[in-house]
């Protein structure tokens, strides 16, 4: 493909509540076996993009570790590869990334030294499958300066989390509002853009000169009427996990056989780093209903309508319902958990009780000493 990829994975969001304390949103575990960034990365690889830069600065360690070996994604390396760019001090600059546009601007030599004519920019917190070549074809056909991938937001109350836009019949974007308080439209930006590389360099340099740093406000909205900005609408599954509620809902969505089939069975596959874990083990007394269970789990109790990530231990007589249990959690005997997200590496003491009302989501962060198993 004649494009290079940039994944913006620096973000953090208070609405993730405690979940974002220890990692960037792009590093959040999703659907039992994945991390959020796997979806954007797999889309890049499956669209035959050979060269991808991941820009990150917040709690970069866990993301870095996840990406450390590009071999899982099979990006060519002689002719491209996977680059992780954290901020660095140079003669000219010694600031952190001050916004999405600035993050790319600080790595502008990567853009300048490339020869691919187009750039696909994606955020690391979207859960979706997309062949970016389709977007690029549209982009070229429309002779667009920037193409914004957008989708219909079904839930009006969710609209305010996103950039909201209105297109004309030719799909050219006529209005664009970032996170409006009220909006009469429900077409939202997915944070995926296609743009010509030289165009991007020019816009970034101009924006930096003006002391501006944000891709949406300072480029998309500011240049809305000066540049040909188009919207490419998708109607396949797309979800953004950047609030705790959305994160919970997205994980639960994988209990739906259609969504599971779409992501797990249909080509192209979503790739991730392989962990070396044994198969899940169900001991006598395990009762598991309508749940996803990742490898390495050992289950002795009851699990219903839940997603168990890797290496979860469920003690005897536990009852886990409507919950998302992240990696490497130890649940002591007789624990009762309902409507919760349990943070990874938690150790829950035997007999604990964490329940939220239906429709609410409680986040459990507990760091007790782990029993020796």
């Amino acid at each position, binding site marked *: 493909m004649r494009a290079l990829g940039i994944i913006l994975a620096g973000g953090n969001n208070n609405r993730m509540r405690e979940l974002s304390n220890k990692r960037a949103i792009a590093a959040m575990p999703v659907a039992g076996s994945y991390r959020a960034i796997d979806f954007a990365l797999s889309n890049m690889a499956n669209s035959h993009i050979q060269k991808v830069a991941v820009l990150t600065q917040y709690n970069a360690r866990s993301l870095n570790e996840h990406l450390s070996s590009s071999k899982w994604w099979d990006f060519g390396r002689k002719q491209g590869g996977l680059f992780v760019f954290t901020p660095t001090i140079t003669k000219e600059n010694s600031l952190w990334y001050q916004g999405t546009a600035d993050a790319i601007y600080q790595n502008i030599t990567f853009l300048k030294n490339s020869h691919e004519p187009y750039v696909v920019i994606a955020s690391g917190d979207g859960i979706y499958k997309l062949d970016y070549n389709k977007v690029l074809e549209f982009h070229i056909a429309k002779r667009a300066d920037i193409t914004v991938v957008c989708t219909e937001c079904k839930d009006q109350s969710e609209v305010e989390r996103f950039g909201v836009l209105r297109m004309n019949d030719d799909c050219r974007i006529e209005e664009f509002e970032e996170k409006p308080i009220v909006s009469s439209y429900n077409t939202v930006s997915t944070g995926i853009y296609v743009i010509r590389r030289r165009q991007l360099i020019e816009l970034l340099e101009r924006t930096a000169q003006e002391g501006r740093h944000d891709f949406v406000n300072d480029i998309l909205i500011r240049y809305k009427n000066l540049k040909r900005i188009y919207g490419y609408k998708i109607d396949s599954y797309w979800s953004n996990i950047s609030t705790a509620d959305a994160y919970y809902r997205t994980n639960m969505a994988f209990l739906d056989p259609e969504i599971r089939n779409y992501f797990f069975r249909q080509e192209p*596959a979503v790739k991730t780093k392989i962990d070396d874990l*044994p*198969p899940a083990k169900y001991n*006598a007394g*395990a009762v*598991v*209903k*309508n749940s996803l269970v*990742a490898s390495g789990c050992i289950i002795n109790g009851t699990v219903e309508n839940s997603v168990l990530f890797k290496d979860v231990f469920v003690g005897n007589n536990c009852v886990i319902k409507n919950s998302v249990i992240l990696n490497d959690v130890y649940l002591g005997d007789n624990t009762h958990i309902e409507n919760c997200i349990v943070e990874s590496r938690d150790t829950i003491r035997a007999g604990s009780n964490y329940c939220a009302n239906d429709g609410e989501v409680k986040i459990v962060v507990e760091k007790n000493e782990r029993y020796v198993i």
Partner: protein
Amino acid sequence: MMMKKEMIAMLLAGGQGSRLGVLTEKVAKPAVAFGGKYRIIDFPLSNCINSGIDTVGVLTQYQPLRLNTHIGIGIPWDLDRNEGGVTVLPPYEKSTNSEWYTGTANAIFQNLDYMEQYNPDYVLILSGDHIYKMDYEVMLDFHKANKADITIACMPVPIEEASRFGIMVTDETGRVTEFEEKPEKPSSNLASMGIYIFSWPVLKEALISLKDQSSCDFGKHILPYCKEKGQRLFAYEYNGYWKDVGTLGSYWEANMELIDIIPEFNLYEEFWKIYTRGDIIPPQYVSADAVTDRCLIGEGAEIYGEVHRSVIGPNVIIGKDCVIRDSIIMRNSVIGEGTVMDKAIIAEDVVIGRNVTLGCGEEAPNVLKPSVYAFGIATVGERSVIPDNVKIGKNTAISGVTVPEDYPEGMLKSGQNIKAKDGDKA
């Protein structure tokens, strides 16, 4: 100019393992699935990297494709190295003579050049068909401490079974004073595990001296030759879990042992991980109607029926109203709704129809290979297809795409076999 390596491993993975019947019809024994997501060869390979050995030659001969694909460039075992790493060593054409491997030592001899380039101090000889965890570095320390020429890993076996093994008699220092190959009256219960550390000059000299020995074998020729010469052979006693999965019965048993609450052979230990090629990623799904009672289930499996005391591989689909008991189902197999099986081994990529019954009826010895298809097990070879509504007895074997006509009165009686044509992959 290769980097010198202190110890390299040579892993013998060429054997067919014919006592595993249809399971090894299309793959070598080391490539047979084990424990839900592993293959047998994962155990010695993981032992290597866990013991700090980063150069492993894998000697293949029989049906190596699955093994090649599985090993690939060694990424899962961290053996994808610029120097060393894992190398598959099949027989090859030479300018003077070209031959297949004719025996264990002959196979090693034909790869002298491979070993030579690493200029090792020690060579570890392994076989690819046992389930165990062993720190070869500790064995090497033992070898060095004894100034041994050859160290042979041995384990105590019940004296009444000793006559099935190569038996070592040692003096009080552990030095081997005698050995007996499958003796009628064993003088000791220390059985060789087929794992040897050789000091490299000793191995090289012996291989070259015995190069014209036909079917040259370690147990039968190399060890006696070296002992004859007065070299220092030591027995290294191992007391952990070690299982030869050479028969359908022992293979089935070893799988079932993993289901115990804390099994004797524990896959869940952090400090000695077993690595394998993990190409299937998604979590498994257990439906609202499913029962998962004492079992291991691999990635990507979907369980809609009942599973009791069984080992289910990755990507297996078990339909509604199935009842699976005491069985092993390997990766990618699909079990139709309403199927019931007791004590069956289903190989990879098998498709079983609806309302099939496996393992029913009285036991009867197998008519073709009574010693292979025994233990009351129904065995189905890889890529087989079984049509709806048939009944299959005990000690049976099925391979290929079977159709209702293969089952007279809808039944394959205990002790019978079907060998049908392969599917479109053949």
